[in-house]
């Protein structure tokens, strides 16, 4: 067994995120992922380079997107000799690809790799009606004219209605927003604090763009130079005027289109490598991957909310690394919904919850909120599911590098009751 080493985060690239049916309405996952890999290659001089591996994924995939990442590599400027595979874990996909690449680097199995993610809600995989699909499959398998006729008897007018992917949990039938609304009520997350968090996200993202923070993290695409969802003039007061869209049957609905992420199109990629590979190629090391933890909850039968798995993952991560929740300079908690972030923080501060559900003697405690999502997060950028992880890893690595030291925590909730978390530390 080789010695384990910490994988280096060298840099990242993403295309500006677009609201669904906007600037990228006609772009496919393959188009966006390929462009993002090419932008990363341009930033780090990787044209023609053979890397150890590219791991990517998408949540909404067409059946034609088999081995999407490999196809993107073949369409990119990277050497075709760079292997690639797909991975999928709902909104955790992007961060999980980084875990996969970092672990192989840590074990010495590869020297370099790219973790990537892409999603489009505009070019979503609308499929054949399942009844029609069965008829066609039977027809395809029929060997005699009679059998074919028999198969065709299964045709019904209603089969013209296609299968449209739903933003709903298969086992509960509730949308992510409805699930989040339940959790928000459970933790009594107020409307005001949600709107404040959303406004801060927009404010921070706009300021970061203005100071050139994203100059080496984002490459324009199809005419878009900044995230289309960004509202620099957003304020808690303006957001307060929006009507609730989720949990409307609840007593005090609080979740609006303003404090929830919209459907978004986009892609991101992160370049990882060993310190030696980075040095050989004269590439910067912004940060190192310290550790990662994935968790899952039983949101179907249990008491836990759909998007609360990171609440469980982080204590494990802290324990294993001998850290407290306060030992971080930056916190990147994915803003699927403002209420998700706030409920997560409340859970860590709650003595009863931490004792009973997390099995801890004391709560993790509060964090310094001025260190949370300091250059904006998903509420402002938008959230192309699998692309969010890569956006956050590259962003946090750059923040740590700018800070010339320190440690950062990433927490991403995912559908299916899962969550992926990671610790990065600044490179010495």
């Amino acid at each position, binding site marked *: 067994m080789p010695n384990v080493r910490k994988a280096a985060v060298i840099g990242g690239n993403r295309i500006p995120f677009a609201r669904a049916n906007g600037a990228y309405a006609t772009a496919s996952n393959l188009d966006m992922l390929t*462009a993002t890999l*090419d*932008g990363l*290659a*341009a*930033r*780090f*001089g990787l*044209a*023609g380079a053979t890397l150890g591996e590219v791991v990517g994924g998408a949540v909404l995939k067409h059946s034609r997107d088999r081995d999407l990442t490999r196809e993107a590599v073949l369409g990119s*400027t990277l050497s075709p000799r760079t292997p690639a595979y797909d991975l999928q874990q709902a909104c955790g996909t992007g961060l999980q690809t980084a875990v996969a690449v970092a672990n192989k680097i840590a074990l010495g199995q590869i020297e370099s790799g790219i973790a990537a993610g892409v999603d489009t809600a505009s070019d979503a995989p609308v499929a054949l009606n399942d009844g029609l699909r069965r008829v066609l499959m039977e027809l395809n398998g029929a060997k005699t004219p009679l059998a074919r006729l028999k198969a065709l008897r299964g045709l019904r007018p209603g089969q013209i209605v296609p299968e449209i992917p739903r933003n709903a949990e298969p086992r509960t039938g509730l949308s992510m927003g409805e699930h989040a609304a339940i959790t928000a009520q459970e933790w009594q997350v107020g409307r005001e604090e949600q709107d404040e968090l959303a406004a801060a996200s927009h404010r921070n993202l706009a300021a970061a763009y203005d100071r*050139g923070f*994203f*100059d*080496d993290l*984002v*490459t*324009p*695409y*199809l005419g878009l*130079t900044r995230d289309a969802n960004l509202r620099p003039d957003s304020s808690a007061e303006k957001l307060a005027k929006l009507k609730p869209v989720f949990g409307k049957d609840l007593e005090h609905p609080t979740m609006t289109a303003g404090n929830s992420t919209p459907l978004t199109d986009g892609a991101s990629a992160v370049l990882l490598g060993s310190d030696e590979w980075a040095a050989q190629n*004269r*590439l*910067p090391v912004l940060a190192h991957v310290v550790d990662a933890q994935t968790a899952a909850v039983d949101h179907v039968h249990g008491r836990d909310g759909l998007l609360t798995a990171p609440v469980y993952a982080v204590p494990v991560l802290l324990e294993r690394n001998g850290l407290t929740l306060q030992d971080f300079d930056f916190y990147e908690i994915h803003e699927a919904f403002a209420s998700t972030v706030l409920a997560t923080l409340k859970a860590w501060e709650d003595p009863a919850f931490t004792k009973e559900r997390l099995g801890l003697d004391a709560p993790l405690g509060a964090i310094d909120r001025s260190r949370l999502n300091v250059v904006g997060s998903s509420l402002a950028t938008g959230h192309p599911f699998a692309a969010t992880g890569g956006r956050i890893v590259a962003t946090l690595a750059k923040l740590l590098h700018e800070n010339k030291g320190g440690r950062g925590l990433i927490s991403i909730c995912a559908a299916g009751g899962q969550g992926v978390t990671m610790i990065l530390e600044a490179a010495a």
Partner: protein
Amino acid sequence: MTTDRLAGFSHTPIARLVGVPAIPVLRRHTPGAPLLDGPALVGAVGAGTFAKQARALLGEAGIVEAGNDGKVAAVVLDAAGASTVDDLSTVQAFLTPAVRRLAPSGRLVVIGPLVGGDPEAAAVAQALEGIVRSAGKEVRAGATANLLVVEPDANIESALGFFLSGRSAYVSGQVVRVGASVSGAPPADPERPLTGRLAVVTGAARGIGAAIAATLARDGAGIVAVDVPAAGAALSEVANRAGGTALQLDITAPDAAERLLAHVRERHGRLDVMVHNAGITRDKLLANMDADRWNAVLAVNLRAQLAINEALLGSDVLGETGRIVCVASTSGIAGNRGQTNYAASKAGVIGMVRATAPRIADRGATINAVAPGFIETEMTAKMPLGTREAGRRINSLRQGGLPVDVAETVGWLGSSASGGVTGQVVRVCGQSLLGA
């Protein structure tokens, strides 16, 4: 880019029949192409020191010297020793039969002395400019005429090689001073003369800048392609094609020079060729000019170049054979209606180049300006038809230049072998009537 339809039409039988003059197809450099397509005629007035250098260069390139008749691909006259009006008669006696033999896309290169000394010698030296500039307007079928004004200890190899080759297709009527080299040596691989050199190109996302990045990469240079973040999509394509890196940077930002040098230091450790190509136009008649238009143009086209040069020359990043190449414009020389701001910036660049050259010679660095004339780009494609046609035709080659023509000139000046050329302004304009 719009296509030059007249150029295509001019080669059809109908065009010939009605007497439309053929617009020449220029001989441009392609990798592996010989220096010249045929033999060269070399002559000298006086000692012929430079004729010797010319013969050595031609010999090395495998170009034979022409006999007494037949077409010649180039005429090289070493008139560095000319000092009397009688010598000019010798020049005429040599050139008259020589230019008659010049093949299509031929090259006439005259080597003359510095203007100085006694009045007659000065007159003769200056007279050579008149001869070459007039000859440039007379030679046909894509041929060019240029003058190298040499110091006695000049090494003309790099300059002469450029003006003979297809790299100088759209450069005619130019006078370039060549002195002793401040640094550098001939390239190990003449086919890829920029091998091992690192070039930074600003404004590289499209047009002339993109061509510079591609051409320098073709010749072996590593490329850092710089442009504003908003142009990043096109920039990354340019960088990937050049096998280089893209740096999204607004060069007018207060910390731009610092960020540029930090990037170069970290990724490459050294910078050999700095190409200041980024430029914008905000045209308005002087009477209607506003401060925003004025300042924006000056900030990108001039102030950024000054700031980056200052930081670069104050750092340890510039290599031992550093070359700075600034893209100016014939508008900066001739002026242009509606372009007081642009012409100010481009003329300013020329002033900066001339003032900087002597200050950096002792560290082996050169600085030169390339002034494009009418170059076929997206920018010229947007011109009104009449203006565009006029721009294309009022030059000796009767056509617009291509971005690659500017790029080739930049590549020549960026070579380590070009240490004898500094403080010069080379127009890439097909000998346009503007700014002549």
